[in-house]
């Protein structure tokens, strides 16, 4: 439902060149449809009445907040789209249902949020943000008000060396966070106490070389193992290696610069491939099913894509970082297609 507003705002966009809205027809009646893009607070606002339009003419339109360098994206149970923007040192909350927008930042002397990287929400829609620069995790309530910081040491330094990927298991009351420079995953309780450490530096199964993003899916913990050029799937409770996608297959790499990841309702794994500005879709056996996107600033094209998120309605959100926007697709599986 929320994407209706994205699509209507898309209709108002002016593009410098003629474009074709991408629609991928896949086997078994499946398809992937481009729905629109999000780049500005302006797209959130409701239809303007006469007096508001008159005010716009006389006093000018308000100053809208635009995405600067978006990095990661997630949606919450209210259908809101939450985007981290390290370029603005904050996060943007787009609420297309209630026509509301909020930019959340924290520029305090104590524990400022400097470079928000990845974002996750819990079952109560609290927002968890990793700050790769300060080495901390910031927690905001659903309204965007600051609640607490995880990993802040007494002197103000961050405990984590470079926290990036983050996921929250509300049922088990666990926070999973990647520390890229320590080559491991930390499992924390909701207060930030370390319960478990998964992995260490290496190239073998269950070992990492600069891990970045992660996702929780059923019993799986899916981790982007960036410099091993693969995505590893672990058991989320034991941390045991299950299988990997990418790496070297018959001497040929399948993933070159893996970034954001997501899983659709049919269990397909979507991996952002930063080198060729596309999204690759694999099945659980690691077989490449199809890909979409290409370098460019047109509809369905990417330049330096980073984060990816798939919600329960199979809307696929891809952060198109250099083009300062979030591109939205919808996947229709076999039973719905």
């Amino acid at each position, binding site marked *: 439902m929320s994407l209706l507003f994205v699509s209507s705002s898309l209709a108002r966009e002016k593009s410098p060149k003629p474009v074709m809205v991408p629609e991928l027809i896949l086997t078994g009646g499946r398809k992937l449809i481009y729905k629109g893009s999000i780049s500005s607070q302006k797209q959130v606002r409701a239809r303007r009445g006469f007096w508001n339009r008159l005010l716009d*003419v*006389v*006093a*000018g339109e308000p100053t809208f907040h635009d995405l600067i360098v978006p990095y990661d994206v997630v949606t919450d149970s209210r259908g809101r789209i939450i985007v981290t923007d390290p370029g603005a040192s904050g996060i943007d909350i787009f609420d297309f249902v209630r026509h509301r927008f909020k930019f959340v930042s924290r520029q305090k002397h104590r524990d400022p949020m400097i470079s928000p990287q990845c974002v996750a929400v819990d079952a109560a829609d609290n927002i968890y943000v990793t700050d790769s620069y300060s080495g901390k995790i910031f927690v905001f309530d659903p309204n965007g008000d600051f609640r607490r910081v995880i990993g802040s040491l007494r002197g103000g330094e961050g405990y984590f060396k470079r926290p990036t990927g983050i996921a929250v298991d509300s049922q088990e009351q666990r926070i999973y966070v990647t520390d890229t420079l320590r080559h491991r995953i930390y499992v924390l309780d909701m207060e930030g106490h370390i319960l478990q450490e998964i992995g260490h530096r290496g190239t073998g199964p269950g070992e990492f070389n600069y891990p970045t993003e992660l996702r929780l899916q059923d019993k799986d913990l899916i981790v982007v193992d960036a410099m091993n050029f693969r995505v590893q799937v672990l058991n989320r409770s034991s941390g045991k290696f299950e299988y990997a996608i990418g790496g070297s297959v018959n001497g040929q790499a399948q993933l070159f610069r893996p970034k954001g990841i997501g899983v659709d309702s049919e269990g397909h794994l979507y991996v952002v491939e930063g080198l060729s500005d596309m999204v690759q879709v694999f099945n659980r056996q690691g077989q490449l099913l199809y890909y979409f996107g290409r370098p460019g600033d047109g509809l369905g094209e990417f330049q330096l894509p980073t984060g990816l998120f798939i919600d329960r309605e199979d809307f696929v959100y891809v952060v198109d970082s250099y083009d300062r926007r979030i591109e939205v697709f919808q996947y229709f599986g076999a039973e719905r297609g």
Partner: protein
Amino acid sequence: MQGKQDFWRLFRLQFTAVVAVVLASAARAVPQVTVGDASLNLTGNISGGYSGSYSNFGPSSHGIGFGGTGNLSGSYYNPQFLSFSVAPFYNQSRNNSNYQSITDSSGVTASTTIFGGSRYPGFLNYSYVYNSENDFLLPGIANYKTNGNSQTFGVGWSGSPTDTLGFSVGYQQATNNSTVYGTPNEINSDFHSIFGTLRYSIAGFRLGGGIHHSNGNYFFPLSLAGQIGQTNQVGTTTYNFDLSRNVGWNGSTWFNYSRYSTTYNTVGTRDSATDNILTGGVSLRPAKKLSLSFGADYDDNLAATLLRPENNLGVVLNPALPAETSHSWGVYGEAQYELIKELHFTGDIVHRQQLFLGESFGSTAYSGGVSFGRELFGGRFSENTIATKSDLGNTGGSLVGLLNNAIYTRRVGAWNLNGSFSYSRSIETLLLGYTTSGFSYSTSAGRRLGRLYWTGTAAGSKSMLSEQQGPTTYTQSYSTGISYSWLGLSGSYSKSSGLGLITSQGITTLPTGLPPSLVPSPIHYGGRTYSVGVGGTPIRGLIFTGTFASTTSNTATGLISSNNHTEEAFTYLQYKFRKVFFTAGYSRLLQGFSASTLAPAVVNTYYVGLSRWFNFF
């Protein structure tokens, strides 16, 4: 009663006109305009309000007024082919905009470039500013305020037909006429400059040459300079030729010839001087950590060379240059060695012979130095020391000189501390036998105290010429500021005194090492300034600021002395709602000179109004 009705009728008419203009402008707003191959953007600001000006230094008035700014920019065919920008402004002052003028100032600035993306780029720029406030410089403390008009024009073209051949030509012109508030005298300056350069590379040699001619006419204020009709006209033509090429041991060798011809007309006396300067040398780097340099120079008219900084400033020169011939030659060698990272040793030897005012000077100077930087006590320390020993051949005496610089930076708990200190003693100037000594320091500290943040700075300097009684320049300045949430307070105090030269731009400090015998009319200056300020943003979109500064100073030449006083107060309030700005401002200037025939100037201005920013297309 009838007059009141007329006023409100006029007010309604003018207000209706402003609203009509605003609505018409907003309704026509489109992103960009393309006309044929031309692409245009226009942004601007239209303002209207009630303003007043009460002064004993010019006309007083009050009433509804309009103003605005614009910025038309664009390109033709391609920005790399032709791009341009024109920015006019009308009735802008510090009370209603960011133009720092007490009075309503108007003007235009324009610039264009052609063939910017080619090997033959050219440019043209122009500016004209009318009725603006400017500064008449006073070293180390707040400047005197002036009011006047200025105009600049420049055009230039350069080319690189091949990688080995290049040229450039250009012309610059600037005129300025203004009046120091509180004096009846105009300051005029008119400056023209034309130049051409050529460079060529062949067989490993790099050749370059050029000609530059400038001509300036300057007229100084009577109340400070002390002479009626004290004008100065200076023309300088410079020819330059240089040759260089790379040699072994990662080195290079060079030769340079410059010829300066100067004509001047000071208070009706005309004279001219020409000096030829030859320099040459070689630089080598035989090892990664060792570099060597050797060179020689010859100047066939030392007096003219010493006078050139004064010429360039446009100051009043001696009615006639020294009749005696003068010359200078020297040879030098220098070595630099890096023992470890951030630890350098230098050593050099310079021998120089000079003939000046009929007297011969000779000197052989040896100097050695060390510079290093390192982390020290949790902070960063860097140090540079050079010691010099000079043997003066003609007197048999010797001088020991020292130059030292030290800088230390560190954070101590919640404190941020910075400090630097520099000391020099008996440092030789261009003219042998004249040395300078002095010191300078600067410190700053900052600390957070809960939600308060405090900063403080202190700086000072003193320099002396050995053949001059008392310090040549002496300055001190202190400032402090404190901020709390949306509110900030600041205060400063500065004190300055010394010997300077009067130019059309103001008083400048004496060029280092200039012999007193070549300074016919130096000006002694001294004074102190204190200022306080407050500013803040209590709510989103609302800003306010208020400042007050008071300066007392005195100036004295051999002809006239003056006690001077300048006071400035300024308050400004602005509230932004979308693209509309509600603005109110008040300024007050008081400036007087005891040597002036006028009473101190008092200028009060105020403004209340609104403005709207537009992105027209």
